[in-house]
C-alpha cells in the first residue's frame, strides 16, 4: 500500500464516525496513523477518546462537543498518509504455549482437509498479530495466520467455553480470556493470563502485537 487507505464515512451518531475500508490490512494501516494522533491530542484530536478497529471498519469515537466535519477532514488527510510504511506489528512478540488438546481439533482438521498434526503445524507455523479486540476484556482477534485454517463457527455455540481455550473462527484465531459462552472451534488450551486488571496495560494482547503459538506436550 503506497497510495494511502481508501475510506468511506458512515454515520454513527453525533460524536463518532464509522470509517469503512477495504479489508483488515487497511484498517490496521489506518489505525497505525490515527492512534498517534489520538494519543497526542492536538486540535480536533483532543476530542477523540477511543478508536475501535474491527474487520473492515474503524470506529472513531469523540466527545459530544466535537465538530464531526472537521474530524472527518482530519481522518481523510491521515488516511492519505497511511500504509506508506509496512505494518510489522509492535517490536514485541508474545509467545503463547498451547496444549493442542481441544475438542474440535478433529473437526477443524476435517474441514481444512488436513491431519490434526498439520493443523497444529499450521497454527504454530506462522506468526499471528492482534488485529482488534472486542467480545470480552482481553480478547484479541488474531489475524495473518495460515490461510488453510479458515473454518466456520460451530453450528451451535457452547454455553461454557473454559478460560484459556485457543480457538479458530473464519480467518481469525483467539484465546478466551475468561469462561464464557462461545461458538468458535476449540483446538487447544493455554495457561497465559490474558487479562489482569492490576497489570499495565491490563490486556496482554493489544492491537499490533505479534503472537507466536508454540506447542507444549504434556
Amino acid at each position, binding site marked *: 500500500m503506497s497510495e494511502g487507505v481508501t475510506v468511506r464515512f458512515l454515520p454513527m*451518531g453525533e460524536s463518532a464516525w464509522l470509517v469503512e475500508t477495504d479489508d483488515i490490512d487497511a484498517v490496521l494501516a489506518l489505525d497505525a496513523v490515527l492512534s498517534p494522533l489520538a494519543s497526542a491530542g492536538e486540535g480536533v484530536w483532543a476530542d477523540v477518546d477511543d478508536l475501535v478497529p474491527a474487520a473492515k471498519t474503524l470506529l472513531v*469515537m469523540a466527545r459530544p462537543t466535537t465538530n464531526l466535519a472537521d474530524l472527518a477532514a482530519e481522518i481523510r488527510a491521515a488516511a492519505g498518509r497511511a500504509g506508506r510504511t509496512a505494518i510489522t506489528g509492535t517490536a514485541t512478540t508474545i509467545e503463547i504455549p498451547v496444549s493442542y488438546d481441544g475438542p474440535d481439533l478433529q473437526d477443524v482438521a476435517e474441514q481444512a482437509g488436513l491431519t490434526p498434526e498439520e493443523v497444529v503445524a499450521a497454527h504454530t507455523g506462522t506468526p499471528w498479530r492482534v488485529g482488534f479486540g*472486542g*467480545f470480552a476484556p482481553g480478547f484479541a482477534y488474531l489475524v495473518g495466520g495460515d490461510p488453510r485454517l479458515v473454518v466456520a463457527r460451530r453450528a451451535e455455540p457452547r454455553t461454557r467455553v473454559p478460560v484459556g481455550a485457543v480457538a479458530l473462527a473464519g480467518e481469525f484465531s483467539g484465546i478466551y480470556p475468561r469462561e464464557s459462552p462461545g461458538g468458535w472451534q476449540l483446538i487447544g488450551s493455554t495457561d497465559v493470563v490474558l487479562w489482569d486488571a492490576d497489570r499495565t496495560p491490563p490486556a496482554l494482547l493489544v*492491537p499490533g502485537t505479534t503472537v507466536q503459538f508454540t506447542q507444549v506436550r504434556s
Partner: protein
Amino acid sequence: MTRSVEILVPGPLTTLQDRGRIGHLAVGVGRAGAADLGSYLLGGRLLGNADGAAALEVTFGGLRLRASGDLLICLTGASTPAEVNGRPVPRAALFEVRDGQELSLGMPLAGLRTYVSVRGGFTGPEVLGSVSFDTMSGLGAEPVKAGQVVPVGTRTVGFPVVDVAGVAEPPTGLVDLEVRPGPRLDWFAHPERLAQTPWQVSSRSDRKGIRLEGEPLERVPELVEAELQSEGMVRGAIQVPPNGQPVIFLSDHPVTGGYPVIGVLRPAAVDRAAQLQPGQAVRLRWDN
C-alpha cells in the same frame, strides 16, 4: 469519622455508576457508566460533586439504606416515592439524611432507574479509573448487597447553589425517541417503517440493551442471508438482528457487534430510553 451508608435492602439491582471507562474499547472493555447519564450528571451537579463521583443506580426502586454520619443526598431519574425515617423527600432536590437515619425508596411511579447521589460521591474499587459495574464483562464494583457498607468520598468541586431542579418526570405512556440514520440504513428494505411501527419495550431489556417488539423490519432481498463483519458499536445504536426486532444499545452494550445498525438515538433520547419500563410504548422519529 468516615461517612458511609449501610445497605439494608438492595432492591432488584443497585449498582455503583459514574461516567464509565473511557479509552479501552480497543481491548474489549466497554464504557459502562450510568444508563441515564443526564439524570446521573444532574444529581452530581446539584450536590457540587466533581466529575467522576459515583452514585447508586437503583433499578426498579426497593433500596433501603442507613446513614453513618450526616449526608446530603439527591434523588434524580425515575419518579420514585422516597422517605427518610417515614418523612417523604422530594425528587431532584437536596435533602439531609442524618447519622443513623434511614432512606427508603418505593417502586418507581414513572421511569425505571433512580440515582441516589451523595455529596462527595460514593466510593468503591475502581477498575481502569471507574467503579461502574459492567453487566457485560463483570468489571467494576459488584452490585450492592444487604449488609454492605458503601463509603462516601470527598470528591467535590464547590458548594451546592441550587436546592431544587425543575426537571420533568419520565413519561408513563407513549415515548418519542429521536433517531438519526445509522451506518447500515441501506441494509433495510423499508427503513421508514422504523418510524411508522408502534414498538413495545420487551421485559428482556437490561443495561446492555432495550429490546423492542413489533412488526419485524425486513432487509433488502439481496442482503437477507448476508453476514456483516463485526464493527464498533456506540451507546444509542439500534441494531437489528435477523428476527427484525430492534435493540437499542445502552451503557453495557458489546464493544463490537455483527448485526446492522439502522439508526442511532440522539444523546438525550438514550437517557429517556434508559427510563423505559417493560411494556411501555415507543415511537422512533427520524431526526436528520
